């Protein structure tokens, strides 16, 4: 069986997989990282979004073997070791951008990529377009959009983060 060697959340992992194993299966079943969710399993809902070499992708629509040699970041890799949340996670909490929470890991991973890839600024329309690949059935998206807009200046160092 193919051997896949990759870095996940900064740690190297070498895993034997079947060629048909999906990246999301490797993460959840081989590495126990169940924060990455499987919602639709048909590339539509975005609950499985992770970063592969810094870019957001749907881990249910990528083979594990395609991630050989890659650096993968999942929702578990965002908070600091002391538990301090990533600014995007903090803004999701601050703006009540989740209800049931099922879509949240994918939403947060897509949102971080969206903010990082737009250093020039993000309009509300760009945020909504950028979230096309993530479905949420609870929130109606409004608070998610607010959270992402609020995270942009923090992630780009435009305002000091909230006082400790």
């Amino acid at each position, binding site marked *: 069986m*193919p051997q896949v060697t990759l870095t996940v959340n900064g740690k190297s992992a070498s895993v034997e997989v079947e*060629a048909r194993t999906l990246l999301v299966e490797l993460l959840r079943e081989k590495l126990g990282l169940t924060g990455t969710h499987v919602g639709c399993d*048909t590339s539509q809902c975005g609950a499985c979004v992770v970063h592969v070499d810094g870019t957001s*992708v749907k881990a249910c*629509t990528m083979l594990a073997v395609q991630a050989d040699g890659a650096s993968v970041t999942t929702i578990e890799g965002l908070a600091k070791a002391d538990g301090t949340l990533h600014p995007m996670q903090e803004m999701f909490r601050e703006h009540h951008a989740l209800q049931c929470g099922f879509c949240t890991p994918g939403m947060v991973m897509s949102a971080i990529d969206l903010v990082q890839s737009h250093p020039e600024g993000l309009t509300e329309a760009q945020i909504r377009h950028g979230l096309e690949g993530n479905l949420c059935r609870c929130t109606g998206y409004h608070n998610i959009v607010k959270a992402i807009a609020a995270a942009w200046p923090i992630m780009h160092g435009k305002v000091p983060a909230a006082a400790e």
Partner: protein
Amino acid sequence: MYDFAYQKPASLADAVKALGAEDAKALAGGQTLIPVLKQRLNKPSVVVDLSRLGLSGISLTGETVTIGAMTTHATVANSADVKRAIPALAHLASLIGDEQVRHRGTIGGSLANNDPSADYPAAVLALGATIKTDRRTIAADDYFQGMFATALEPNEVITSVTFPIPAKAAYMKFNNPASRYAMVGVFVAKGPQGVRVAITGAGQGGVFRHAAYEAALAANWSADALNGITTPTDGLNSDIHASAEYRAHLIGVMAKRATAAAG
């Protein structure tokens, strides 16, 4: 998903050789192939990953834009060169699927698959692009041969696509709000090969050119020139999303909007 053997060749020649195996399947970005495999609609013996062949990248001359087959939709959509030379092409790429799909999906994969609702076939046909493979170049007019059918041999690999830079071009798409595939997409172009109008999403045989619109726009490049030209419903798709009559109507609406947008 049925299991399969997996190969990631390091040269084009090795990829072509691997694809010569019975029931071999090429893997580009995988945004169609992997869902198809999950549904067990296809059972390849071997999946040949094309990602190590160095086939991505964008290059410009004064007259053309050449896009490597493994270039992702996101790269095309965000390319300053493509936005400057053929903004309609960058716009089209930005409308494919969603952000995460665009990060993986490739132009070569889209064209090799030739989904009747895919976006890129409209640009390739309307702009009169040429498709370069490991063994030849194929003109757009010869390439598309019906739903999911192309001029490619079973083991033939697209390496790049060259688009002549048009004087005017625009793409307008009425998408299915769930899948974001085109219910109707219209690409209009006025370029070195004259006025060409390509329609995707609507035809049972995949992308096609609209001769009546081309003649009208060649005589008078304006949205009004398309007034009163109806599109026959013969050969148009009719499904739960839209009837053939509605698609014929949308072709007119999208063509006028595209012509107006092209300026």
